[in-house]
């Protein structure tokens, strides 16, 4: 494994540890787990199914295009990672829209702040890559564009939360 590989692995581990640490801070009680009610569990299960099939379709399509030697916008690893992001996006957006994403003991405000922070951090890293000109090589996107797509995913999730809140507030007023 070369140096960049080790750094990527290290970054992923640090990211997971930070996410775990932040999870504790977002709970509104002292329980060790997030609590969901039965309807939320059903919504999350359905969302997971849709997300899983989205990943299967996206990644299957990428592999088929590669086998058929259709020129892709990047090497195969990147479309597969982007396919995973799309799948995660489908799951999260479905859960947020059907009010199954946030646990009963979760602070929504802190989560929204976390997502905006994550989006800004990812866009900052991708901006640096764009300025350095390392995001595209030989006419194809490199793995350094992952941060851009990750930032985009967080923005989409944040916008869904925002739209859902606006939609819900409007509905509450009607009732």
């Amino acid at each position: 494994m070369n140096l960049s590989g080790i750094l990527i692995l290290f970054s992923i581990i640090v990211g997971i540890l930070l996410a775990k640490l932040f999870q504790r801070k977002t709970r509104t009680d002292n329980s060790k787990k997030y609590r969901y009610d039965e309807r939320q569990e059903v919504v999350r299960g359905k969302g997971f199914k849709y997300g899983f099939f989205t990943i299967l379709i996206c990644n299957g399509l990428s592999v088929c295009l590669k086998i058929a030697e259709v020129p892709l916008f990047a090497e195969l690893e990147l479309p597969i990672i982007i396919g995973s992001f799309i799948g995660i996006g489908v799951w999260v957006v479905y859960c947020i829209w059907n009010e199954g994403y946030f646990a009963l003991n979760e602070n929504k405000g802190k989560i929204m702040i976390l997502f905006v922070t994550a989006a800004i951090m990812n866009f900052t890293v991708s901006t640096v890559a764009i300025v350095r000109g390392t995001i595209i090589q030989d006419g194809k996107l490199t793995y350094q564009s992952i941060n851009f797509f990750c930032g985009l995913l967080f923005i989409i999730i944040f916008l869904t939360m925002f739209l859902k809140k606006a939609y819900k507030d409007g509905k509450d007023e009607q009732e």
Partner: protein
Amino acid sequence: MKNLKLKSARAALDLSQQDLAEKVSVSRQTISAIEKGDYNPTINLCRAICKVLGKTLDELFWEE
């Protein structure tokens, strides 16, 4: 189909959806979905709701 019996039983005790949701450990949206008929609760949740509202399963969830 809307569950108007649940809504009226809740209103009779002057409970909001949020109050009832907290008493049976579910989200307000779940109570709203049950009242609107968008979600069919499990028997465990039906029993918990009946206990809080002081009604029987038949009184709240049986369709005439």
